C-alpha cells in the first residue's frame, strides 16, 4: 500500500517536472509550479511581471520524489509491520463502515486529482485544419484566431464550447473533445439558460409540471444565448395575458402588445421595426421556453448540461462542487502535515524537557487559544494586499487556521512523552549514550505517536468545516476558488433556488460523514481496550 503510494508520488513528481520543462500542464502534477508561479516570494524575480526561476516548485518536486523513493525503499517487497500495527490494520479493515468510507474518500481524491481532464472549459483534444492540438495540457493560452474565428472575438482566447458547436454545425472532420463537465469551476460565466415549455393540455394551454403555467415565457433567437430574446409573453393560467415585448437581434425593443385571455387586445400593439409586424412575429425562433438568469435550475435541455443548475454568478454547480472538493483536498494536504509537524514536535519537546520550557510554551498556548480567532481572520482578510490575496488567498487562510490549529494535540503529546520518558528503554538508550535527537525521534516519537493518528480524521473534518464556515461568513478565500461555503451563502440568499443549498449541503454533510466514519474506525482500531461498546 505505502509502496504504491511511494511510486505514485515519484510519478507525479516526474510528470510535474517534465510538464514544467516542456510547458505542459498535467492534472494535479502541475500544482507545485502553479503555486510557485502565482505567489511572489515563491519564485525568483524574472523579467518584468513574469516569474523567473520557480525554486519552490522544483524544491517541492525534489522533496516529493525523494519521499516517494524513501517510501519505496523502506517498504520494500516482503516488508512487514510490527504485529501490533498489523493487528490494528486488521481491526480497522474489519470495521466495514470505516473501511469502505476510506475507499470512497480515496476514490473521491483520485477523481479530484483528475482536475481539468474531468472538469474544465479547455478542450482536451482539438483537430482543426488537419492539425491536432491539446489546449488543456499546454500552459499558453491559445488565441481564437488560430482556429478560424474572425471579427472581434479573434483576438480573445478561444471559447472551446462555442468552437465545438461551430465545428459540429460545419460538418467537417474538425472536432473538439471537451472534458466530461465542460465548464470550469470558477471564472466561466455561462449566462442565462433556457428550458423548454413543451407541455400543452387539451385546450392547447401551456402546462408546467402538470399545472397551468403562470409566468414569463419567451421565444429566443438562439437557445444557446437566450439573453437575446425574440418575443416574451406573460402567461396566466396557461394563456397569454398581460404585456408582451419583442426585440430585434441586436436587443432593441421594437414590439409591444397587451394580451387578455390569450387574445391580443385590439389597438394595443406597437411596432417600430422595419418591414411588417407579421413578418417579425413569424421569424423562425425557438419553441416557447423559459429563460432563467443565474441562478438557473438544473437542466439538460438545448445542449446545455447543468445537471445541478448554475449558481448566482452563472457557474455550473456541478463544476463548482468539484472545484470545492479540490480546494478541500489541497487545503488538507498542506494543513494536516503542517499542523501535525508543529503540534507533535512542540508537544514532544514540552513533555521531554519539562521545566521552564514547558511552562513557557504552556503560557504561549493559553494566549493563542484565547485569541478571538474570527477577528484575526477578519483583520487579516482586510489587511492583506489585494494582489497577494488574489494569488495566495487559500494559503493565507490555511496558514491562519494552522496557527490556531496546532495547540489541541500538544497536550496529548506532552502527556505521552512524559509517560514514555520514564520507561526503561529510554533510560537504557541514554545509558548507551544516544543523543537527545536520537532518543526523541528513534524511540520516543514512534512509541507515542499512535494516539495522535486517531486525531487526524477529525482535524480534516474540522478544517473542511472551518473553511466552509469562513466562506459562508464572507471572510474566506477569493472568488477564483470554488468553495462550498460560498455556495451555501448563495443558497440562503436565493431561497427560491433550492438546488444551490441542497447541493452544497449534501456534499458537505456527505464528506464530513465519510471522514467521521473513518475517524471512528481508526479510533476503534487503536483502542487498547479490545472490547468496547462501539460495534
Amino acid at each position, binding site marked *: 500500500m505505502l509502496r504504491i503510494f511511494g511510486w505514485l508520488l515519484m510519478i507525479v513528481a516526474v510528470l510535474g517536472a517534465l510538464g514544467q520543462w516542456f*510547458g505542459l500542464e498535467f492534472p494535479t502534477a502541475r500544482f507545485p509550479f502553479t503555486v510557485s508561479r502565482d505567489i511572489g516570494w515563491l519564485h525568483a524575480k*524574472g*523579467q*518584468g*511581471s*513574469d516569474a523567473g526561476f520557480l525554486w519552490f516548485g522544483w524544491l517541492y518536486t525534489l522533496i516529493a520524489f525523494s519521499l516517494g523513493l524513501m517510501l519505496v525503499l523502506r517498504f520494500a517487497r516482503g516488508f512487514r509491520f510490527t504485529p501490533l500495527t498489523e493487528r490494528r490494520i486488521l481491526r480497522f479493515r474489519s470495521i466495514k463502515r470505516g473501511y469502505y468510507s476510506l475507499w470512497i474518500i480515496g476514490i473521491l481524491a483520485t477523481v479530484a486529482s483528475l482536475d481539468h481532464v474531468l472538469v474544465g472549459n479547455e478542450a482536451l483534444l482539438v483537430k482543426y485544419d488537419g492539425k491536432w492540438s491539446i489546449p488543456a495540457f499546454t*500552459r*499558453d*493560452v491559445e*488565441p481564437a484566431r488560430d482556429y478560424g474565428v474572425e471579427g*472581434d*472575438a479573434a*483576438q*480573445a*482566447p478561444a471559447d472551446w464550447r462555442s468552437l465545438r458547436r461551430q465545428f459540429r454545425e460545419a460538418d467537417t472532420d474538425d472536432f473538439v473533445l471537451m472534458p466530461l463537465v465542460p465548464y470550469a469551476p470558477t*471564472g*466561466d*460565466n455561462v*449566462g*442565462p439558460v433556457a428550458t423548454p415549455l413543451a407541455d400543452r393540455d387539451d385546450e392547447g394551454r401551456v402546462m408546467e409540471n402538470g399545472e397551468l403555467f*403562470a*409566468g*414569463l415565457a419567451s421565444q429566443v433567437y438562439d437557445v444557446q444565448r437566450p*439573453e437575446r430574446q425574440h418575443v416574451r409573453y406573460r402567461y*396566466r393560467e396557461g394563456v397569454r395575458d*398581460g*404585456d408582451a*415585448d419583442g426585440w430585434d437581434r441586436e*436587443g*432593441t*425593443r*421594437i*414590439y*409591444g402588445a397587451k394580451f387578455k385571455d390569450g387574445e391580443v387586445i385590439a389597438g394595443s*400593439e*406597437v*411596432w*417600430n421595426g422595419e418591414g411588417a409586424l407579421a413578418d417579425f412575429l413569424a421569424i423562425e425562433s425557438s419553441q416557447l421556453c423559459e429563460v432563467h*438568469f*443565474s441562478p438557473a435550475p438544473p437542466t439538460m435541455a438545448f445542449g446545455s448540461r447543468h445537471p445541478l443548475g448554475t449558481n*448566482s*454568478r*452563472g457557474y455550473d454547480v456541478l463544476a463548482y462542487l468539484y472545484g470545492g472538493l479540490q480546494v478541500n483536498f489541497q487545503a488538507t494536504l498542506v494543513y494536516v502535515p503542517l499542523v501535525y509537524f508543529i503540534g507533535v514536535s512542540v508537544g514532544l519537546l514540552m513533555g521531554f524537557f519539562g521545566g521552564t520550557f514547558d511552562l513557557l510554551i504552556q503560557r504561549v498556548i493559553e494566549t493563542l487559544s484565547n485569541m478571538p480567532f474570527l477577528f484575526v481572520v477578519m483583520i487579516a482578510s*482586510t489587511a492583506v494586499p*489585494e*494582489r497577494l*490575496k*488574489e494569488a495566495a488567498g487559500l494559503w493565507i487562510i490555511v496558514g491562519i487556521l494552522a496557527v490556531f490549529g496546532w495547540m489541541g494535540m500538544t497536550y496529548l503529546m506532552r502527556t505521552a512523552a512524559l509517560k514514555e520518558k520514564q520507561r526503561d528503554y529510554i533510560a537504557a538508550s541514554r545509558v548507551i549514550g544516544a543523543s537527545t535527537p536520537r532518543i526523541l525521534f528513534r524511540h520516543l516519537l514512534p512509541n507515542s505517536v499512535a494516539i495522535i493518528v486517531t486525531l487526524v480524521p477529525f482535524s480534516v473534518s474540522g478544517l473542511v468545516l472551518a473553511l466552509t464556515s469562513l466562506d459562508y461568513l*464572507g471572510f474566506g478565500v*477569493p*472568488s477564483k476558488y470554488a468553495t462550498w461555503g460560498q455556495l451555501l*451563502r*448563495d443558497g*440562503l*440568499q*436565493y*431561497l*427560491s433556488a433550492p438546488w444551490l443549498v441542497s447541493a452544497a449541503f449534501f456534499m458537505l454533510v456527505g464528506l464530513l460523514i465519510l471522514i467521521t466514519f473513518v475517524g471512528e474506525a481508526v479510533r476503534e482500531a487503536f483502542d487498547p481496550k479490545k472490547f468496547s461498546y462501539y460495534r
Partner: protein
Amino acid sequence: MVRICIVGCLLGVALGLSGCGDTGSDEAAVADFESWYPQYNSYIDGWLNGQLSERQKAVSELEKTIAEETNAEARAKLSEGLSELREKAKGFQDRLADGEYFQFHDAADLPQGLVWENGEEQPEIGDPAAKKGGAFRYFIGSFPPTIRPFGPNSNNSFRGELYDNVELGMIDLHPETGEIIPGVAKEWAISEDRSKVYFRIDPDARYNDGVAVQPVDFMWFIYLRASDNVVTPWFKQYLREELAGVSIYGDDVVEVRLPEARPKPAYDASFPPSPPHFYKEYGPDYEFRYQWQVPPTTAPYTVKPEGLVKGVSITLSRDPEWWAQDKKFYRYRFNADRLVYTVVRDTSKAWELFRAGEIDYFPITLPEYWYEKSEMPPVFDGYIERYTWYNQFPRIPWALYVNMAKPPLDDLNVRLGVNHAINWQKVIDVVFRGDAERLPGWTRGFGAFDNPDIQARPFSIRTAREYFAKAGYDKEGGDGILRNAKGRRLEVVLTYSNDPIRERMMVILKEEARKAGLDLVLDGLDHTVVYKKQMQKEHELAYSAWGFQPPYPRYYEYFHSSNAYDEKGNLKQDTNNVFSFADDRMDSLVTAYRKAQTDEEKIKYAHEMQVIVHDSGVFIPGYMTEFGRVGVWRWVRWPDSEFTEFAPPRKYIPMETYVYWIDEEMKKETLAAKRSGETFPEVQEVKDRYRMVAPAAPAAEEKGTPAVKAEAGANQDQTKEVKP
C-alpha cells in the same frame, strides 16, 4: 439646504456603536445661547480676518512672482490664479463688511424694496381623494445606533425616515417642478446680489408639542451644532464656510446670508428650526443625555415614547393637529396615521414577510424580484399590485472611477483601452436582464445640463488591444495577458464593496477584460474600507457612485486640480476628486461654471467639461435605470389626479414622497377575500407621466427613429423646469 448635503454624505456612512453609556452625573447642564453667540461672533470674525490676511499675503507674493516671470504663457496662467485668489479675498472682505454672524434688528430695519414670493403658483401635490388613517408597515435592516438628529452616529440611514424626509425647513423644493415651495416660512425674498435671503415665518408654524416656532429657533439650530458640546466636524465647517450669518428682524423675519451669490439662494439658505424648550439641558453630556430622545419637530410625524422599542421597531405617529395639514402642498400628503418600521436583518426574510402581508411595500426594481420572485400567487390573485414608475432624479453615476495618478493608468492610451475592455453591456444583459441602460457619461438626468453628444465607449476587443498596443502593451504572455517591452503585465486592481450582486458584476467584467488582454485584479472589500481607500486615493479602478442631488451637476469637487494635488504636489486626501484629475482647461471651466449666474452659461460650460471628461477616459460609465418598481398590498393607494400620477418624479424612492394613503376598508375587504380564497384582477401598471425619454417602442404611426427627437423635446421641457 442642509439636509440635502447630509444625504450626500450618507454614501460614506460609517456606522459605529455607541451605548447608552452613563453620563457620569445626573446634574443637568443649562443651555445658554445668550452667552454663547457673542463668542461665536468673535470666533467667526477672527477666522475671517485670519483667512483674509492669508489670502492677501498670497496675493502679494503671487504678484511678485508674476512680475519676475518672463514666459508669457506661464504669466497668463499665474494671473488666472491671481484673480481667483483676489476673488476669494474679496469674499472674506465682504463677509467682514456685513458685520457679525448673529445679528438682531428691529422690524423697521428690514431693507426696503424686497420682492416677496410665496410659491403659491406651483401645482398641488398628491390626490384630493387621499384618506387619512391606517398604518404603513415597512422594514429596516438594522436598528439605528441613536435617534438624535445630530452628533456622533446620527448620520445613519434611518435619519431620513425619522427627520430629513418629513421635517419642514424654511422652504422645500416642489417634488415635481423643482421650484421652491413654502415650508415653515410662508414667504421669502432675495436680495439683489442673490446672496441674502429673507424668510417670513408662518404664524401658524408649530412643533409637534404645540409650541410656536420663533425666529431665534433658527439660531438655535446653529448653536446646537456649532458649540463645543458636541463633535460635529461636518456641521462646524458647513456653518462657518457655507453660511455667512443669520439675522433676525422683528418677530417674524429671519435673514440668512450666504458667502457668495447663488443661482438658487433660498434653497441653499434653508434649514429647519430647533426647539429651545426641548434643549434646555443641552451641555457637554448632550451625546448621552439626548441619545434616545426625539426632539419636537415641525414634521407631521413624531415618535411617541411607546413607539420606540429598542432593537425591534420604531413607530412614527401622525400629529392629528399638525399645523400645515390644511396648507397647499401638504394637505394631501402624510396620510397614514402610523409609519411602522420593524427591524428585519435579512432581506430574504423581509420578502417572506411582505409575501405574507406583514409588510405593505417592497422595492422590486431588481430583475430577480421583478421577473421571478414577484411572479407569485398573491400577485396573480390581485392582493399585491406591481407598479413601474419613471422618475426624473439625477441618475446615480454607477461607473468605474479611474485614478489617473496610478500607473499604468497615467497613460491616456491605457485608460482608453480599459474603457473599451470593460463590457458593461454584458453586465446589463446578464445581471440586469436588459432592464438597465448604459450610462452615457458623467451626468444624466439633469436635463439640458447633459451633453447629448457624449456616448459611452462600447466594448471592443480589437479597439482595446489597439489602444494597449499604442501604450506599448503589444506582447501577449502565455496567460493571455498583454505585456510591454519591460515585461510588465497589464494588470489593474478593481476595488469594490463586496455585496453579492456587485460580485457578480465584477466577475463578468474580469472575464471579459481578459479577452482584451487586461487582467483585472478583483479587490472586494467592506463598504467603509472601499470608501476610505478612495478618499486616500489608493485605488486604481473603483466601482462606486456618488449620490447626486438636483438641480445642478457638480464639477468642482470632482475635477478641479486643487482637489487632486496639494501645494507640494502630493495627492490630496479626503476630497471627491478620486480621479486625481488635474487639467488647466478644466480648472478654468470649473471656476467659470461655479461663477456663472445664468443657466445658459452653466449649460455651455457643463457640456464642454463633459467632453473633457469623456476624452480623458477617467470615467468609465456603467449603467442607469430610469425607473423604480415597487410591489404594494392593494390597500396602499397611490395618487392618480391632475396633480400627481403615482408619485412626484423628483425623488428616488416613491415611498419617500408620502403621497400614498392606506384604505382601511379595502384592507378589510382584501383580508376577508384572502381568507375565503376570493381573488381580484391582477394589477401591473406602468406610470410614465414623468418619463423623460420616449418609450423604446413608440406608437405605430410614429415610424422611423423618433426616439431621438422625443428626447430632445424632453430636454427642452427640462430646461424650463430647471431654471431657477
